[in-house]
Each structure stands twice: as structure tokens, then as C-alpha cells.
């Protein structure tokens, strides 16, 4: 991908001045990434082999004990399960509703650009603010949802304190925030499909569903793949919405691995346990990121 713009030039000596300038330009960024991304990644893995309370000068080496304790614990398994439930539900919700809305807003409707803007707006808004707004929307007595359910002749579940309803609550808020992103990406994808393909399918007697099934869906598969990976990554890193809405409760019902890293590290001061969760989470995320980078690379080569 890279090419050397200086190749054609006739200077023979090594361009030391240019090398020096390169280093000057690149150094701040590389050093910051080294000290605040790469080195701490190594530190996280290292700390997962110790017990430490974040304050005392002594770290106690415990080998693989943290990992043994981590996997041999029902609460931790429950939290891993929560992480995957949250991720799965938000990814499926975002992609399915996102595709539906994209199909609608891809039609030549007046005002669709305004509609797209409105749909995208929640994506740029602070997750903490979104979480607080949705918390009020779900207020079991005075919230918007309670009012609507009242209209339908039923009462609101206790979204705050019922472990069965807290998770759907944060999932809805998260999907709402991220939906517009999927819509915009899907619309961009839809616009790359050549219209002739639909014409050809129509000539062949394909109905609307058949055209969707055999033209739209296959052509959207790269976009769907991209969205799938980015949505998995962002959902597994969700923190602000959960923190302001439920603090992982009630009874751990909305506690995910990211939340556990925060809680173990900065509330319980169990750095070893927190680092263990962080390391396991990193391995999960790495798998998804490798897929994403492959995708980016492919894009780069073709564009």
C-alpha cells in the first residue's frame, strides 16, 4: 500500500534530515500510543497474575489463581452470560430494525433526509445523558412507557427493580442510541446496488420478496458483516448507559464484563480480579477486531 514518493529523485545519499523529520512528526503519537495503549495492555495481563488493592506497595503473585477463581464462579458465569445476551440482543435489534428503516428511507420520499438526520442524532449524543433520559422514560409510575402501557390497559413492570425487566430496559436504550448508525450505513449500502439488477429480476418475473431475497440481501452482505462486527464491539464495550441506568443491578441482572472491570477495580479495589476480567474481555474483543481490520484492509485495496 505504501509507496515512496521520493523514489524518482536523483539524490544518492541517505536523507537523514528527512528521517529526522519523520521521527519528529510521528514520535508524539507513537509515544502516547505506547505509554497509554500498548504498555498498559501488557500491564493488564501481568496484573491478572497478582492480587493487589491498587494502593498498597506490595503486589502478591498468585499465578493462575485469579483465572481459576474467575471461571469457577457462578456470578462470573452469569456476568459473561449477561454480556452475551446484551450484545446479541442489541446487535440483532440494531441490524434488523436498522435494515427495515433503511429500506423505507431509501425510497424517494419527501423529507427522508430530515428523517435520516433525526434517526442519526441519538448516535452523537452522550450515552450518559441518553441513559438518564431513558431512565425517566421507563419510570414505572411517572414515565412515558408507563403512560403508554396505561393507555393499553396494563400496568408497567418495575423496570428498575425487577431483574427480568432491567436488561430489556438497557437493551432498548442502547439500540435506540445506535440505530441511526446502522440505518445510514445500510442506506449507503443499498445505494451501491445497481438498479439494473432489480430490472432484470423483474423481467424474470421475480416478485418483491424474491427481489429482496435474491438481490438486496446478497448485495448487502459486506455491509451487514461490517455492521455486525462494529456492533458486537461497541455493545461489548457499553458502559455509560449501564452505569447511569442500573449500575449493573438489580442483583447483577445488567452487569456486563466491562462493568465488572470497573467495579472490581475501582469500587472493590480487587485489581487482580479486575485485570483477569479485562484480559478475558480483551480476548473476546480481539477476535471481533481482527475480523474488522481484515474488512478495512479489503476496502483499502479495492478503493
Amino acid at each position, binding site marked *: 500500500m505504501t509507496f515512496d514518493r521520493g523514489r524518482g529523485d536523483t539524490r544518492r545519499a541517505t536523507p537523514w534530515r528527512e528521517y529526522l523529520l519523520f521521527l519528529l512528526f*510521528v514520535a508524539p503519537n507513537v509515544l502516547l500510543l505506547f505509554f497509554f495503549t500498548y504498555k498498559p495492555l501488557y500491564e*493488564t495481563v501481568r496484573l491478572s497474575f497478582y492480587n493487589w488493592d491498587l494502593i498498597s506497595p506490595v503486589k502478591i503473585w498468585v499465578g493462575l489463581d485469579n483465572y481459576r477463581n474467575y471461571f469457577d464462579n457462578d456470578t462470573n458465569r452469569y456476568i459473561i452470560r449477561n454480556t452475551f445476551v446484551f450484545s446479541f440482543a442489541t446487535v440483532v435489534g440494531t441490524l434488523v430494525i436498522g435494515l427495515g428503516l433503511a429500506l423505507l428511507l431509501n425510497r424517494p420520499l419527501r423529507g427522508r433526509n430530515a428523517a435520516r438526520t433525526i434517526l*442519526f442524532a*441519538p448516535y452523537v449524543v452522550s450515552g450518559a445523558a441518553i441513559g438518564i*433520559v431513558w431512565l425517566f422514560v421507563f419510570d414505572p409510575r411517572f414515565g*412515558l412507557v408507563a403512560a403508554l402501557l396505561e393507555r393499553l390497559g396494563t400496568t408497567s413492570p418495575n423496570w428498575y427493580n425487577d431483574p427480568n425487566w432491567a436488561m430489556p430496559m438497557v437493551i432498548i436504550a442502547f439500540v435506540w442510541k445506535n440505530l441511526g448508525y446502522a440505518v445510514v450505513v445500510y442506506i449507503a449500502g443499498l445505494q451501491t446496488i445497481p438498479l439494473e439488477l432489480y430490472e432484470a429480476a423483474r423481467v424474470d418475473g421475480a416478485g418483491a420478496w424474491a427481489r429482496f431475497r435474491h438481490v438486496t440481501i446478497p448485495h448487502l452482505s459486506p455491509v451487514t458483516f461490517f455492521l455486525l462486527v462494529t456492533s458486537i464491539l461497541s455493545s461489548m464495550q457499553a458502559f455509560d448507559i449501564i452505569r447511569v441506568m442500573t449500575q449493573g443491578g438489580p442483583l447483577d441482572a445488567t452487569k456486563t464484563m466491562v462493568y465488572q472491570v470497573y467495579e472490581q477495580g475501582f469500587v472493590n479495589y480487587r485489581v487482580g480480579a479486575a485485570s483477569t476480567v479485562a484480559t478475558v474481555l480483551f480476548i473476546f474483543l480481539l477476535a471481533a477486531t481482527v475480523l474488522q*481490520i481484515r474488512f478495512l484492509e479489503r476496502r483499502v485495496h479495492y478503493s
Partner: protein
Amino acid sequence: MARAVATGAELQQPKPRQRVAWRGAAGAIAQYGLMVLCVIVIFAPLLWMVGASLKTRQEIYSLPISWLPSSLHWENYRQAWTAVPFERYFFNSLVTTILGSALKVTNGVLTAYALVFLRFPRKDLVFLAILAALMVPEQVVLIPNYVLVSELNWVNTYQGIIIPGGGVAFGTFLMRQHFLTLPKEVIEAARIDGAGHLRMLWTIVLPMSRPTLITFTLITVVAKWNEYVWPLLVATDDKVRTLPLGLTQLQNSEGQTQWGVVMAGAVFVIVPILALFVWSQRHVVEGLTAGSVKG
């Protein structure tokens, strides 16, 4: 569902028979209806927020629920502004967003320029080493970063909030991809004229890259303004607390008994970024969805 599936070409086609035209009209109305409904559903929470921020306490906490405020009651805003030091939070958010974004954008631009226009052995490896940072999410490295920042005595300082996030991988990628598309001839002509690299960057490369630069800046500003988890750890003092954290402070102090005040606080946090977004939405959308679709 099946109706929504056909493409734009269908509606633009002339419809020979009356019956088909009528069905088209009915379909169009259904689609408009559906679109309006979706917009309302998506917008409802934000309207609910603004509505509640203008209601009196009695209106919020009485049944049946009133959908709209009976009159514009601005008291909640005043109360939110004074219940916690919002003015300070605003200032802190501005400082960390502006300085943090400036650092990131400068780093991204300089790195991308060096990677594309300067000679260096194996600079593809340098690029890979930067890009690989995309694989390390912030949440995984919170603890060691906190330890480092507290060893530097940077807890509750602006540099503690800003510096750890100063490195940039995605923005470097974005700028580099754009620099690679710039016409070689212009760059070489400037070199022959004896322009130095800093001057070239400033007078030729950046002006030719305006849209990408704006996009990169905007997505950085949005991310900085909304940043939550890192400031939550290192900004525990109102002196440096940023808006999203201030909102949590307000929630803790007013809680579920003062929703009107809390919603007014949420408006303070949401409105500036929403205004920026509406003003520059094309660039923001472009930047945030970059890499998704070819071209």
C-alpha cells in the same frame, strides 16, 4: 414489509394503468405514514425530556400523566444550573474537548503526513504499529492507565483527562488514506519550488484535504464531549469534572424525585453537541460511517 422492499426505480417509472397508479398513491401514503411514525418513535424520548424539563413538579408527579407542559416553566433550568456547578462543568468540557481534540488532530495529521510524504525505512511497519492500537479498547487498559496517571500526580487535572487519549489510530488511518489520493504532481511541483515540509503541509496538503480534516475533527470533538469512563475515574473533583459526569452528580443529588431538574440538566449536555451535529451533519455522518462502504 414486502412493499418497502422495492427500489427507487419503481416509483419513478411511469405507471400505465390507472389502477396501478392508485395503488402507488396508497403505497406512498402508507410509506409516508410509516416514516412519520418512525420519526416520532425515535424522537419521543427527546421530546419527553424537553417536555419534562418545562413542567412543574406537580405536573410530573401526578396521574394521569400529562403529555405536554401546561405552560413553559423555566425554573427547572435555573435549579439544575445551581444544584451542581454546571457552569464549571461546561468550562471543563470545553477545555478538555478543545485541547484534547487539538492534540489528537495534530497527531493524526502529522503522523499521516510523515507516513505518506516523508522517506523512512519500513514506514509500513510504523503504520501497522499505529493501526494495531485499534485492537485495544480503552476499557481493557483502564487500571494500568489509572495507576500511571496517579503516579504522575495527574488525577483531577486537565492533563490527566486529556493526555492519555492523545494518541490516535483511526484518525491517522483516515488522513493517510486521503493523503494518498492527492495528485503527486502538485506535491512535487511544490517540492521543486523549494517549499519546506511544514509549509507544504500547511499551504498545500491541508487545504486540499479540507473535507477529511473537518470530518476527522468533528468525530473527535463528538467523542471527547461525550467521553465518560476515563473522566469518571480521573476527574473526581468538581474543579475538573466534565458535563456527562456533572449530569450523574445532578442525578445523584436530585434523583427520581426531581425528574424535571434532571431533564433540564440533560438538555444542557445534549443541546451543544446536537447543534454541532445539525450544523455539520454531512461531515459527522461521513466520518462516523467511514470505512463501511466503498468509495
